[in-house]
């Protein structure tokens, strides 16, 4: 749930879900049981950093640097998105 999502936590893809490049349509998709969701460019940037070892805080640092954006804005968006995907069983918590 949202209240548990802090920067110390480490997300991973749940077994049976993954981020994948769709070469034919030139887009990123989240592959999941019996469906594929389109990952918009922002979600794709975030999810490419999900490796089961990197904490949300480190991911947010990297994104803030890469996009030269205010860290607090990135942090808010990333925590909300990752919390939502964890609720939907796309992501699980390694820590």
């Amino acid at each position, binding site marked *: 749930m949202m209240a548990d999502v802090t920067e110390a936590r480490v997300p991973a893809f*749940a*077994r*049976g*879900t993954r981020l*994948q490049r*769709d070469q*034919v*349509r030139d887009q990123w*998709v989240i*592959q999941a*049981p*019996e*469906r*594929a969701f389109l990952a918009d460019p922002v979600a794709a940037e975030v999810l490419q950093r999900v490796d089961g070892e990197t904490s949300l805080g480190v991911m947010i640092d990297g994104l803030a640097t890469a996009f030269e954006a205010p860290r607090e804005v990135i942090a808010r968006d990333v925590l909300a998105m990752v919390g939502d995907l964890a*609720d*939907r*069983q796309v992501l699980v918590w390694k820590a």
Partner: protein
Amino acid sequence: MEGVSSSPSPPPMSLLAELTHRCPLQCPYCSNPLALEPKTGELSTEDWFRVLDEAAALGVLQVHFSGGEPMARKDLPDLVRRAVRNGLYTNLITSGVLMDAASLERLSAAGLDHVQLSFQDVDEDGAALIGGMKGAQAKKIEAARLVVADGMPLTLNFVVHRLNVERIPRMFDLAEALGARRVEIAHTQYYGWGLKNRAALLPTRAQLEQSERDVAVARERFGTRMAIDFVTPDYYADEPKPCMGGWGQRFVNITPVGRVLPCHAAETISGVVFPSVREAALGTIWNDSEIFRMFRGTDWMPEPCRSCDRKEIDWGGCRCQALALTGRAEAADPVCRRTAGRAVVDAALRESDKTFAYRSYGCERLSSADTSDGST
């Protein structure tokens, strides 16, 4: 066929690979055609390898290995491995009755992503009445246990109909107890075997409404812990379903002998050649063959579809249902209240409400109608 569409075709998202029609179960609503293919005509492992390579290159994202019972094919782990190598998401649609620890381990090692396990009912007797196989329920429960123990995500699929629809709450209990991540509650679709047994299977309106309440309660109870798909029987709807997300737009089906179809019931359509992967590349078939072009897009539509504001929402509904119920595949889907053909659907519903007389008739039909070709 006249008026085939010239609309550009987006690549398919999803491939249903019907590896075999062989199956130990005999369900009277099976989506396989009435004329089942023998083992001798089935595609070879090498044929399927080429199909999987071509499907991935064409743009397919997910492959659903189905049947029949796909675990009856000994090369299933090799096919899964080939699909995985191509980046395809692999889904096994199985009855579970042939699964044991060793066979699941081979599939898991091959990289299988997900299992959809069918249940015919919540207890042994109900399951045996539909599936016609003694001891099937215990094998299915063991299969579910193995999948969950492996860590693979599991979907339980329940096809519901007049004889089991009242047990939907217990179906959710079973799914929770087994650790399923998803549940599909799918009302029977009335083509082929289902249509043949419709008088025994079609629920009453009261049963349908109760099933909708039961699913709503389960959604509330499980929240995001369990994904729930609910497929309603379209006979009770006022507008047709957008069958396959539109003909030849997202979905491609390959039969055990290699015929390529826009949906699993399309072989009921006469007067058209069904192309085969033995003779042509999948991409050529998808883009250029008559069967895929004949109902693609909206150019083929008759009235009332042609001028309908929903024509790009429901895509004219289901071609095979139009054929089965009106005799013409190019007619509007008779589920639609805006068509004259609706009368034939309403007549079937009036029959279903004769519950009291039809229940015993139904059981008789089920036990006699399911054995003829179902297992060969």
